[in-house]
């Protein structure tokens, strides 16, 4: 029976134009909408599968603004059965703060008789791209950590995680309790069903206040990179452009 904690973050959806807040401290997602990163959607899916396979539970947690409850409910609608919300303004915290808060949640749940054996996170958040919260959390807890897994399975008292490396697939086998950060690619996140959504609405979310003093992220400001002028050279239209394109391939020396 594996009790998994999966950590998610509400991020501005950056598929369209990116707008910054007036104080240049955050991305303004009010028009574009909010989501969680693709890595975290996969982490939720893996958490739910690991819980089902071992008749355990999957709890979702976020450290974020009051609105982040939307993302918690989304995870509840696809199979997580409990949720914890650490209410905090995301512009004031950095990766060290988030890791410290998540560690506090693990400790609090353990003290309340609901220990977690496995914590899953995204490898990096789609907005801040810090690449370190999972590792910092593992250090806080004194647990081993595997980074960038695409599949996660619990076997006896171990977690087996597969990672796509440039040299092929690498496998880690680590004793529980452990932390694993997840990359998209190993599983297809499921869509919420109508009963799933109904169930998610009824789950009582555990609300917590942060217990650490946020140190911040050493951020001075965000800014948009200057727009790049288009310098494209059109080689032609349709199949008639093939000779010009092959000339270019020859010029670049890429034809064998």
């Amino acid at each position: 029976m594996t009790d998994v904690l999966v950590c998610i973050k509400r991020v501005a959806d950056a598929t369209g134009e990116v707008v910054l807040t007036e104080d240049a401290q955050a991305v303004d997602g009010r028009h574009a909408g909010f989501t969680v990163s693709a890595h975290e959607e996969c982490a939720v899916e893996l958490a739910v599968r690991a819980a089902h396979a071992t008749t355990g539970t999957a709890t979702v947690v976020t450290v974020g603004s009051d609105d982040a409850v939307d993302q918690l409910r989304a995870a509840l609608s696809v199979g997580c059965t409990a949720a914890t919300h650490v209410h905090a303004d995301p512009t004031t915290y950095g990766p060290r703060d988030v890791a410290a808060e998540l560690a506090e949640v693990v400790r609090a749940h353990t003290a309340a008789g609901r220990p977690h054996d496995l914590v899953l996170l995204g490898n990096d958040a789609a907005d801040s791209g810090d690449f370190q919260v999972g590792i910092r959390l593992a250090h806080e807890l004194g647990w081993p950590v595997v980074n960038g897994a695409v599949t996660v399975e619990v076997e006896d008292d171990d977690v087996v995680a597969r990672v796509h490396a440039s040299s092929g697939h690498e496998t880690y086998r680590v004793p529980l309790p452990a932390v694993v950060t997840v990359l998209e690619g190993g599983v297809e996140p499921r869509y919420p069903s109508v009963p799933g959504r109904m169930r998610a609405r009824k789950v009582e979310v555990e609300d917590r206040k942060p217990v650490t003093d946020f140190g911040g992220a050493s951020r001075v400001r965000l800014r948009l990179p200057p727009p790049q002028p288009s310098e494209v050279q059109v080689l032609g239209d349709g199949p008639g452009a093939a000779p010009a394109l092959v000339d270019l391939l020859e010029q670049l020396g890429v034809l064998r």
Partner: protein
Amino acid sequence: MILVFLETEPDGLTETSREALTLARGLAGESGGAPVDAVLVGAPSCPADTAVEQAAAYGVRDLHHATGEAFDAYGGAVWATAVEAVCRDTGAGVVVAAGTPRGMEVLAHVAARGGVAMAANVVAAEGSGPLTVTRQVMNGAVLEDMVLDEDPAILTVAGHAVEARPAAEPGAGRLVPCRPEVPGADLVARVVSAEPPPPDLSGDLTSARVVVGGGRGVGSADGFADLLELTDLVGGALGVSRVVTGNGWRPHHEQVGQTGSRISPDLYLACGISGAIQHWAGCASARTIVAINTDPEAPMVTRAHYAVIGDLHEVVPAVIEEIRRRRDAP
């Protein structure tokens, strides 16, 4: 002193490690010519003397090589132990690595242990104590300015944000072997087995010189036949957009982008790909980009170096025919 964590490939240092060395040398110059040392962990994929020679050309004084059974199999925590030990012994004030999965992982462990900040995907850095860095966030759609005023300052360098340039004056390039002590707990999470990538045209996506990309415009799984033929003809690798993997037309390990591979070929031939920011994040480092697209306004077209406006199902077969014709010509 500035310490750079190095990664290798059979020919020597990886391009991204050379870029990290170039950035480190720039910083060293700013702090009055501080020495640049480097650290190599475990058995490198190239001979150690090749690594030393190349590191010296990039200005490295001492190349610390951490060896011992503990470092043979990769593990983020155990490799970080070696970097941390060298950092402590040399009193390094800045630690730099390439922003690769390994570079990020190892330095995040070092930062977590030291309780200091880490800046990932830095594109520019200046000053010395405190350092001011600019890094990519939101896949490069946004830049973040950040101050690193802790000791050591830890940062990883975004791929191809800096052009790798050998030093005007080579460094001493001394090989300094070391055998750092490893606590048992650091050995727990290590690679227990590795399999080579599947034998297909995407195996070497991240190191391919030519990548042929296919997006939604390809239309179906069967639609890839021409692209695969072209990929084979140019000896390249096939890369695809997330729509393609999402539709199940091609496997995920072929995906280029934020949640796929980051590629840096000499040529990226993007066919039927719009160039959304998440895809662009993975291909922006290509030296030359050619887009084949029906829409002249698609971001991939306006950001490319060259474009052919048209239906890829007409253009690609014509290109294949033209290559064959020239090859067969006496």
